[in-house]
C-alpha cells in the first residue's frame, strides 16, 4: 500500500470509530434533557433515577467521543495537507464556527451539568443539559456543512491565481441543500440510535425485573419513550433519506449508479435487492433479485419514464470531462453499505412496534425472547450509521471534493491530489498507533458501558440532594467528584 492507501485506511478507521460514539451523544443529550424535564415538572423520582442512570452511560461515551474528536480536526492537516490547502479558505470556516458556536457550549455546560447538581438552582441546572443538547446538534450542523461542501461544493469558486477554492458566500455554504438533507438525516439517525439504546436497555431491565415497582415506574415508561421516539426517528429517516437520495441522483450520479450496480444507462431500471459479482466492477455483475418501479421513484418520484445513467457510461463521460482516470467508486462497498444502512432499520422498527404492543395498557412483558431481541437490536442503529457514512464517503471516490454539476466546473479535487507527501512508513506508524490505542479504549468503553448497564439505576439515586446555598461554610461533601 502506498501513503495514499494507508492514509485512507487511517481516516476510515478513526472516523468510523469516532462516529460510532458521536450519534449516541447527539441523540442521548436531548433524551436526557427530556427525562430531566419530566422529573423537574412532575417531581417523579423515577425520572430522576433514569436521568442519572442514562446520564452515566452518556458520560462514559461522551469522554471517548471528545477524545477521538481531537484527532478528526488534526488529521486534515496531518494527512490531507494538500486537501487542506485547497479547501481551507472554505472548509476551515465551518470548523471554526463549530468550535466557537457549538463545542465551547457543550464542553462548558457538560461540566456544569455533571458537577452542578447541588450547586445550581434546579431550573438553571436543567437549562445546562438543554444547552448541551443544543451544542451537540449545532456541532453536527457545522461539521456536516463542511462535509457537504465535499459532496456538493456551493458558495465558493476556484481561483486559478491562488490555485484553491475560495469562499464567496458563507450563507450559501451553510444552506447547501446537500447539507440540510445530510444534517436532518444524520440527526434522525442519531436520535434513532439513542432512542433504541434507551428502549433496548429499559426493555431488558423490564423483563429482568418482572412486575415490580421499578418496572412500572421506570423501565416501562422509559422503554415506551424510547420506542415512540425511535419510530418517529425511523420515519424521519425515510423522508430525509429520500430527499437526500434524490439530490444525489443529480449531484453525484456515479455514487447512486454504484449503489444500484447499474452498469449501463437504462430507462426505468429495476431496483436491485441482491446482486452477485465475482469481480469488483461491471464485468461480472449478476442481478439476482430485482423490483420494478422503486428506483425511478427514488430518483425522481415517478414510476416510469426515468432515464438513469450507468457506471460505464458515466466513466466515459468523466474521462472526456476530467481527463484519463478511473472515476468509479468501489462497487461492492457502495452497493452493500447502501443496503446495510437501509436494511438494518428493520430491527429498531420491529423492536419498537413489538415492545409498544407488549407494554400496551399497563402490561409488563416478561417474555425472555424480548430481552434477547433487545440485545440484538441495540447495536443495529450504530452499524446502520457507519454503513451510511461508508456509503456516502466511499461512493464519492475518487473525489475528495466532488465537482458540482451546476457549479464552478474547475472546483474539484481527487483523493490523490489531496494527500500529504508522507512516506508510507510514516503513516503506518500513526495508523498502527491509533488502531492499537483505539482498540484498547474501545474494550474499556464497552466494558464500562456493560458494567454500568448491568448495575442498573442505583438505589442511592432515588432522592436528589437539596441544593446547597452558595457560600455556605459547612464541609458538605461534593455531590459529584471524580
Amino acid at each position, binding site marked *: 500500500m502506498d501513503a495514499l492507501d494507508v492514509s485512507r485506511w487511517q481516516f476510515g478507521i478513526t472516523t468510523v470509530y469516532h462516529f460510532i460514539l458521536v450519534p449516541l451523544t447527539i441523540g442521548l443529550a436531548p433524551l436526557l434533557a427530556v427525562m430531566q424535564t419530566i422529573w423537574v415538572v412532575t417531581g417523579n423520582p423515577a425520572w430522576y433515577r433514569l436521568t442519572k442512570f442514562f446520564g452515566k452511560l452518556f458520560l462514559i461515551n461522551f469522554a*471517548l467521543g*471528545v477524545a477521538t474528536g481531537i*484527532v478528526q*480536526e*488534526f488529521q486534515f*492537516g496531518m494527512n490531507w*495537507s494538500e486537501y487542506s490547502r485547497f479547501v481551507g479558505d472554505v472548509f476551515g470556516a465551518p470548523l471554526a464556527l463549530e468550535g466557537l458556536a457549538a463545542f465551547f457550549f457543550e464542553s462548558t455546560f457538560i461540566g456544569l451539568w455533571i458537577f452542578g447538581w447541588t450547586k445550581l438552582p434546579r431550573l438553571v441546572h436543567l437549562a445546562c443539559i438543554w444547552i448541551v443538547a443544543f451544542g451537540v446538534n449545532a456541532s453536527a450542523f457545522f461539521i456536516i456543512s463542511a462535509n457537504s461542501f465535499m459532496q456538493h461544493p456551493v458558495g465558493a469558486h476556484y481561483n486559478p491565481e491562488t490555485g484553491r477554492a*475560495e469562499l464567496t458566500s458563507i450563507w450559501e455554504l451553510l444552506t447547501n441543500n446537500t447539507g440540510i438533507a445530510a444534517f436532518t438525516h444524520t440527526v434522525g439517525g442519531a436520535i434513532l440510535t439513542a432512542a433504541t439504546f434507551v428502549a433496548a436497555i429499559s426493555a431488558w431491565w423490564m423483563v429482568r425485573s418482572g412486575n415490580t415497582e421499578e418496572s412500572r415506574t421506570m423501565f416501562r415508561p422509559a422503554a415506551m419513550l424510547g420506542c415512540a421516539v425511535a419510530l418517529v426517528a425511523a420515519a424521519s429517516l425515510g423522508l430525509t433519506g429520500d430527499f437526500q437520495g434524490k439530490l444525489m441522483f443529480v449531484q453525484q450520479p456515479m455514487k447512486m449508479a454504484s449503489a444500484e450496480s447499474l452498469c449501463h444507462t437504462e430507462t426505468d431500471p429495476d431496483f436491485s435487492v441482491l446482486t452477485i459479482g465475482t469481480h469488483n466492477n461491471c464485468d461480472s455483475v449478476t442481478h439476482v433479485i430485482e423490483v420494478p418501479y422503486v428506483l425511478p421513484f427514488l430518483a425522481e418520484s415517478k414510476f416510469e419514464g426515468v432515464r438513469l445513467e450507468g457506471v460505464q457510461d458515466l466513466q466515459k463521460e468523466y474521462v472526456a470531462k476530467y481527463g484519463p482516470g478511473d472515476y468509479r467508486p468501489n462497487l461492492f462497498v457502495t452497493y452493500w453499505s447502501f443496503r446495510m444502512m437501509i436494511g438494518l432499520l428493520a430491527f429498531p422498527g420491529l423492536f419498537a412496534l413489538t415492545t409498544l404492543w407488549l407494554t400496551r395498557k399497563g402490561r409488563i412483558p416478561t417474555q425472555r425472547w424480548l430481552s434477547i431481541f433487545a440485545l440484538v437490536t441495540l447495536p443495529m442503529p450504530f452499524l446502520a450509521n457507519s454503513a451510511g457514512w461508508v456509503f456516502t464517503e466511499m461512493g464519492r471516490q475518487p473525489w475528495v471534493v466532488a465537482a458540482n454539476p451546476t457549479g464552478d466546473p474547475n472546483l474539484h479535487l481527487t483523493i490523490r491530489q489531496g494527500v500529504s507527501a508522507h512516506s508510507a512508513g510514516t503513516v503506518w506508524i500513526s495508523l498502527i498507533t491509533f488502531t492499537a490505542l483505539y482498540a484498547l479504549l474501545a474494550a474499556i468503553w464497552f466494558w464500562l458501558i456493560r458494567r454500568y448497564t448491568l448495575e442498573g439505576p442505583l438505589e442511592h439515586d432515588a432522592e436528589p440532594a437539596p441544593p446547597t446555598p452558595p457560600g455556605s461554610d459547612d464541609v458538605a461533601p461534593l455531590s459529584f467528584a471524580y
Partner: protein
Amino acid sequence: MTLQHLWFIILAALFVGFFVLEGFDFGVGMLMEFFGRAADGAEETAEQHRRAALNTIGPVWDGNEVWIITAGAAMFAAFPGMYATLFSGLYLPLLAILVGMIVRVCAIEWRGKIDDPQWRRWADIGIAMGSWLPAVLWGVAFASILRGLPVDAHHQIQLSAGDVLNPYSLLGGIATAGLFAFHGAVFVTLKTEGAVHDDARRFATRLTVPVTVIVAAFGIWTQMAYGNDVTWIALGVAVVAQLSAVRLVWTRRADGWAFAATAVVVAAVVVLLFSCLYPNLIPSTLNPAWSLTIHNASSSPYTLKVMTWAALLLTPLVMCYQGWTYWVFRQRISAAHIPASIGLSRNGGPH
C-alpha cells in the same frame, strides 16, 4: 491594520487562552502523583488528596480544552497554508501530542467510574502521561516553529530530527512544562484548603527558583535570537509577573493574585513567541523567501471578514459563560469535601 494582522492577533489570543487555561490543567495532572505522595503515607489519605487536586479542574478542564480545538480550526480557516504545512510537517510530534491528549481525556473521565486501586493506578498513569507529554511537546513545537523549519519552495517540510531535537527547542519544552507545573500548583493552592492546600503551596514554593531560571533562560534566548525592540515588552511583562508570583508564593499571601500572576506569565510567554514570529507564521530555514507569512498563507479577504465577525461576536460570549463556570465552582475544596468513590466495584453483576 489589515485582516491578516488582526487574525494573527486572534490566533495568538486563542493560543493564549489555551495555554493559560489548559496550562494549569496540565500542571494539576503533572503534579497529581505528588499530592498522593505528600500525604501521611496512608493510601486512603493519599487517594483523598489526589482526588481533591483532580477535582479542582473537574468542572472546567473539558471547556478549557476546546481552546485548542478552536485555535486549530481558526488556523485552518484564517491561515490554511500554515495549517497544512505545519500539521503535516510536524507529523510525529503532533501524533505524540494527540496520543497524550486522548489518553488524558479518558483517564480523567473514567478514573472514578470503577472503585478499585488497580484501576485508579492505571488512570493515574494515563493522567500523568497525558499531562507531561503535551506540556513538554507544545513547548518543543512552538520553539521549533520560531527557530524555523525546512520549508521548501512548495511549502512542504521534510522534517529531520535536529529540527525539533535541538537545545533551543528542548529548553522550550522544559520551560512550558515547568511553567505549567508552577501554574498548576498555584491554581491548586487557590482552589483548596487544608492539607492539600499546604501541599500545593509547598510544591509551588519548591518550583519557584528552578522555573524562574528556566523560563528566564528560554525568554532571554528567545529575545536575543529572534526578538526585536517591541518583544522586549512581552519579555519584561513575563519577568515582572513571574517575580511577583514568586514573591506572593514565598510570602504566602493572596493566592488569587499569585494565580493571576502565573496566568500573566503564561500569556506573556505566548505573546513573546508570537511577536517574535511576526510577520512570519513558519520561518523557512532553507530560504527566507520560502517562509510562510501572514500574507502568503492566509485565507481570502471575504473568509477573513466572515470569521472576524464570528470571532468578535462569539469569543466574548464564550468568555462570559466560561467565567461564570469558575464563579459557580469558586468554593475551595479540601480532602474532607471528597465523597466516597462514586464508582462501581470492579466485579458484581445485576442484583
